[in-house]
């Protein structure tokens, strides 16, 4: 279950957000895409999940081309996207948000869907306590947990996480990242983690892809990237 991206380019008008990007996210590993604001990280994820149409290149998931498929078809193939900004539906309850994530599986495999939502609540007990509350009343961290739970209930093989740390307290970030890491190590879930917070992301990732202005600057084991003082200074500023 690998995701192979080759020569992917996505343009918005005259702006090239994703510029000839190629890399591979291996199965059951955490691949992190890091880079400064505006490096094209979110556009990359939005292109993979079908929200944006690329102008050229290919995205192969298990050998299958994803380009041209609608977002609702791509998630059905096991690629779940948790977009930036704790994307939940504030006007729906916590339980409804989670149920929404599994809607498309409700006819095919009801029993498994029920166990999937049970597992999700076990993973995030805070959400269990707040089942009946509107998602809009949750704290930022809880909303991020809900957004991840919404994606997990579809039992994806690959989860695309867009800046889960955005606007959250360091302790909450640590907890969320640890949960994601656990999921990857225990259940074999592949993770493509986009982060501006490079220290945290490289801390858990297996492979690191460094983007700058839409291009890949480095694609190396996370350990090496962490140790490379030149790259850090030039692109990450720490």
């Amino acid at each position, binding site marked *: 279950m690998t995701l192979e991206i080759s020569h992917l380019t996505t343009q918005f008008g005259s702006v090239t957000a994703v510029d000839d990007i190629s890399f591979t996210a291996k199965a059951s590993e955490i691949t992190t895409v890091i880079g400064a604001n505006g490096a094209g990280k979110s556009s990359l994820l939005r292109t993979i*999940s079908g*929200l944006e149409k690329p102008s050229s290149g290919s995205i192969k998931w298990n050998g299958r081309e994803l380009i041209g498929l*609608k*977002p*609702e078809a791509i*998630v*059905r193939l096991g690629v*779940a*996207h948790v*977009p930036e*900004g*704790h*994307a*939940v*539906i*504030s*006007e*729906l309850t916590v339980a*409804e948000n989670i*149920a*929404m*994530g599994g*809607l*498309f*599986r*409700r006819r095919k495999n009801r029993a498994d869907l029920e166990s999937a939502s049970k597992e999700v609540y076990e993973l995030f007990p805070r959400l269990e306590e707040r089942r009946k509350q509107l998602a*809009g009343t949750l704290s930022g961290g809880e909303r991020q947990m809900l957004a991840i739970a*919404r*994606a997990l209930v*579809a039992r994806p093989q690959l989860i695309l996480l867009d800046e889960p740390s955005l*606007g959250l307290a360091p302790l909450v970030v640590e907890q969320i990242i640890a949960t994601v890491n656990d999921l990857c190590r225990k259940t074999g879930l592949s993770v493509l983690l986009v982060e501006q917070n490079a220290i945290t992301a490289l801390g858990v990732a297996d492979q690191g892809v460094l983007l700058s202005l839409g291009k890949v600057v480095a694609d190396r084991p996370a350990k090496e990237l962490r140790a490379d003082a030149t790259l850090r200074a030039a692109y990450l500023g720490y």
Partner: protein
Amino acid sequence: MNLFLSAFFSGTARGAIYAIVALGLVLVWRGAGIINFAQMGQAMFTTYIASTLIISGKSYWLAFVIALIAGAMLGALIDILVMRPLSRVHRAEALNSPAMKATIPVIASLGILGLLQALAGMFWVGQERGFPAPVAIEGLIVAGRKMPFTAFDIFTIAIVALVLVLTSLFFRKTGTGLAMRATALNQEVAKLSGIRTTQVRILSWIISGAASSLAGLLIAPSSILSPSSLDLILIIGFTAAVVGGLDSLPGAVLGGLIVGYVISFVNFYRSPEDIFLAILILLLVVLLVRPNGVMGSKQVRRV
């Protein structure tokens, strides 16, 4: 007292019908982002179908059910044949701005209204017809006393109440209902959750079409049926939807009742000529005091 009760019951029955009209408008607005000006044209057309069946000797109930099915199908056709192709047109740069994207379907719906009225004129030679009610529309007499309501009022209120309960159960308790609410609230998250939003949109048109047909069937007995006789109902229904809050289904029902009472009390205590003035005042007051409607959501800023 009797006058008051008469106005009250008549207002409830009329309000129930306006609630259904407003419900139809709100469904398409939430589901497809379109104000559907063709809605009462759809209602007129399917009521003519029911009328033709009844005149040819079929039972009222058969005609009733067929009109509802025809309304649902007409709604689906409008989405498939007109709205969906229109949303895919990206040829001209000038048509690609958000303002134009919002305007084009509205103009299209006006075109559909014209088309339906013209077709009705051709098929039924534009003849004005009466339309039967399944029960008496004169004052009900119980134990020798004339009641302040008619059997048809009771019928209308009962059937609308049933429809509202079923609709609300559908939206609250079923997966498809949840998919429809999610799509209306946040299309991107709905898509990423695997919800097929194109199917959700056509479903909005289908339910709205059936609701419009029901409204037509319930209005027709107390007015005449002609290709343009339901035009004013659209204005009243639209006022009801705006009063309730254009994006709220319970708001549509409440708005319908409020407008129904205003119309009925003005009609009973003043004169029918003042009805539209009263509606205009109601609309102005609501827009000034609560621009999002009585139950409409405040525009929540999304981060």
